[in-house]
């Protein structure tokens, strides 16, 4: 019996009992709305919550700064990390767990056994491969070992942040530890990647909530990134786009153009080549709290080829020239000729030639001129 889709049990969830049904529904609706799930999804989420079903989540940390967890803590709808923890059962998280040491390791192994094939694995941080992976060890085991073991029986795997998605900062040159992302290690598994430094927490929430509610993962691109967040480039939805189109560029930090909020392309903004939704979903619950919004060019942190590889102030090509950019062709079409004029012109020429031909015929009828005889 699929615990998530079975709706026969109808006991109110512990959360609901705590805060009341109305408020509960409000929270669920807000959660669904924030990631664009439809009304019907809300119903399903409520029903899933009603069942008191909280899928288990095992959250592994490797070579990371914990920034992605931190950014997740700064979300408000759903508000408060505790609500998130009520929608899911966060059974292993090194930062947020109260337990430590052997206790938390036991929790990890118990969860893996009890929820085998049902838990969601979240990976934060890159995994070093060099020298057998000794550069990151937890409880005496390498990150490589832990990842392979936990991923083996996971129902879904989410790589949160650029480090887990493709290596991120630890993988930037010279990459002394051989850091790499989870998909590169778990080659035969579907890994949802949520790149970003930090990742936009709502992208993560969206994936998790969809999985929790509908049991499915969103559509992914060839790098495992959910299309609902990573299909478009920053440039396509950037609020400073009119300035780009009008050629108003910041030349130096602090100059007049900078103060007026003009386009940062010339400062090396990677927006035109970076797939992410930061331009429309800002951070820290503060509108405008995102790099370009505060006046710094995008560094392309979601893109493996750009993040921490290409210098921040190097300009990039535009990946997709989409509207409002339109271009005339090399040879534009300047319109045809008027059929009326052609008709008139043809008529005139025809009449002239016809008249001349008629004259010729008349002359045929006349004999040689008589003056000629007198001319000797």
């Amino acid at each position, binding site marked *: 019996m699929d615990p998530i889709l079975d709706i026969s049990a109808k006991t109110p969830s512990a959360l609901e009992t705590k805060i009341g049904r109305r408020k509960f529904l409000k929270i669920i609706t807000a959660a669904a709305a924030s990631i664009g799930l439809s009304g019907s999804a809300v119903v399903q989420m409520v029903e899933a919550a009603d069942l008191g079903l909280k899928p288990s989540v095992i959250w592994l940390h490797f070579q990371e700064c914990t920034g992605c967890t931190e950014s997740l803590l700064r979300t408000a709808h759903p508000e408060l990390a505790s609500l998130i923890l009520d929608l899911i059962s966060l059974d292993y998280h090194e930062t947020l767990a109260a337990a430590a040491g052997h206790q938390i390791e036991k929790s990890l192994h118990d969860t893996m056994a009890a929820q085998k094939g049902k838990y969601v694995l979240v990976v934060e941080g890159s995994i070093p491969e060099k020298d057998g992976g000794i550069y990151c060890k937890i409880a005496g085991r390498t990150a490589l070992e832990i990842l392979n073991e936990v991923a083996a029986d996971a129902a879904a795997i989410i790589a949160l942040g650029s480090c887990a998605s493709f290596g991120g900062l630890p993988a930037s040159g010279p990459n002394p530890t051989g850091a790499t992302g989870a998909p590169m290690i778990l080659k035969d598994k579907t890994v949802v990647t949520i790149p970003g430094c930090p990742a936009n927490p709502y992208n993560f929430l969206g994936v998790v909530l969809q999985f929790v509610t509908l049991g499915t993962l969103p559509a992914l691109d060839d790098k495992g990134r959910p299309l609902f967040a990573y299909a478009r480039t920053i440039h396509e939805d950037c609020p400073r786009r009119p300035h*780009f*189109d*009008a*050629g108003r*560029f910041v030349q130096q930090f602090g100059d007049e153009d900078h103060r007026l909020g003009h386009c940062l*392309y*010339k400062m090396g903004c990677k927006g*035109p080549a970076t797939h992410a939704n930061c331009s429309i979903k800002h951070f820290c619950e503060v509108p405008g709290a995102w790099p370009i919004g505060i006046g710094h060019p995008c560094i392309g942190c979601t893109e493996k080829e750009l993040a921490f590889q290409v210098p921040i102030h190097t*300009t990039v*090509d*535009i990946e997709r*020239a989409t509207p409002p*950019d*339109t*271009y*005339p*062709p*090399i*040879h*534009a*079409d*300047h319109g045809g000729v008027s059929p009326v004029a052609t008709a008139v012109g043809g008529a005139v020429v025809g009449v002239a030639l016809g008249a001349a031909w008629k004259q010729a015929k008349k002359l045929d009828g006349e004999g040689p001129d008589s003056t000629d005889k007198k001319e000797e």
Partner: protein
Amino acid sequence: MARTRRAFLKGLAYAGGTAAVSAVPAVASEPRKAPDDAVGMLYDTTRCIGCKACVVACHEANDLPPDTRGDVLYDAPQSLNDRTKNIIKLYQEDGRRSYMKQQCMHCIDPACVGACMIGALQKREHGIVTWDSDRCIGCRYCQVACPYNVPKFEWEEANPRIIKCELCNHRLAEGKEPACCEVCPRDAVIYGKYDELLAEAKKRMVDHPGRYVDKIYGEHDGGGTQVLYLSHVPFEKLGLPELGDEAVPKLNRTIQHGVYKGMIAPAALYVAMGAVMLRNRRKGDQGDES
């Protein structure tokens, strides 16, 4: 009658001989070089992102009104025209893609300058081809002559002008760069001394073998242009014509100078004809007219 014909032919031979003699040095003339203080631009298609900031900047720097004519997008001209001195076009075919910046090429031996009757279009300071409103009569011969289809005419004005890029010479006088070069965020088009730009173009080709088509357009084309192009797609695809190395106006100049040098040939012909006619008239007075 034989005598008059002889006289005429004599005269003609004399005129022809003079013309031929004066024509020889003209035919053997050297191709022209860029002036010593020549400036120009270098456009590199691999660097252009099609942002069209140059199109906007050109409009502003030259006080050109937006082009809102016709049932098209606002201010999105389809080609150079009387309100557009600089334009970015797009070439797309079979997955190949390139932008193309089009404006006056500031040829070293321009066809338009060779055409203009009264020197309205001339190469002036730094070899920049500029248009003088005080001289132009609007005959549009420059439009017929230019192989790049650059000069545009104000068809809807009562006092029409010829409109074309003049390398922002009004800005150069203030020590600034042409507006398009100044605003380009990618330095896809750069301004500088012609010699330095040519050297830079050659350097780029050496530094990045295989990136560019093996030719700097404008180095020799049509006698050379002060605006140079580097491209990753064939130049004909970008609308740049295959011109050969000879300057466009050279043939005309050779003929005009050769035949009319010092007006010797016409004068000789005139005198010869006059002489023949006088002779005929004298004959006629003697009653010998056939």
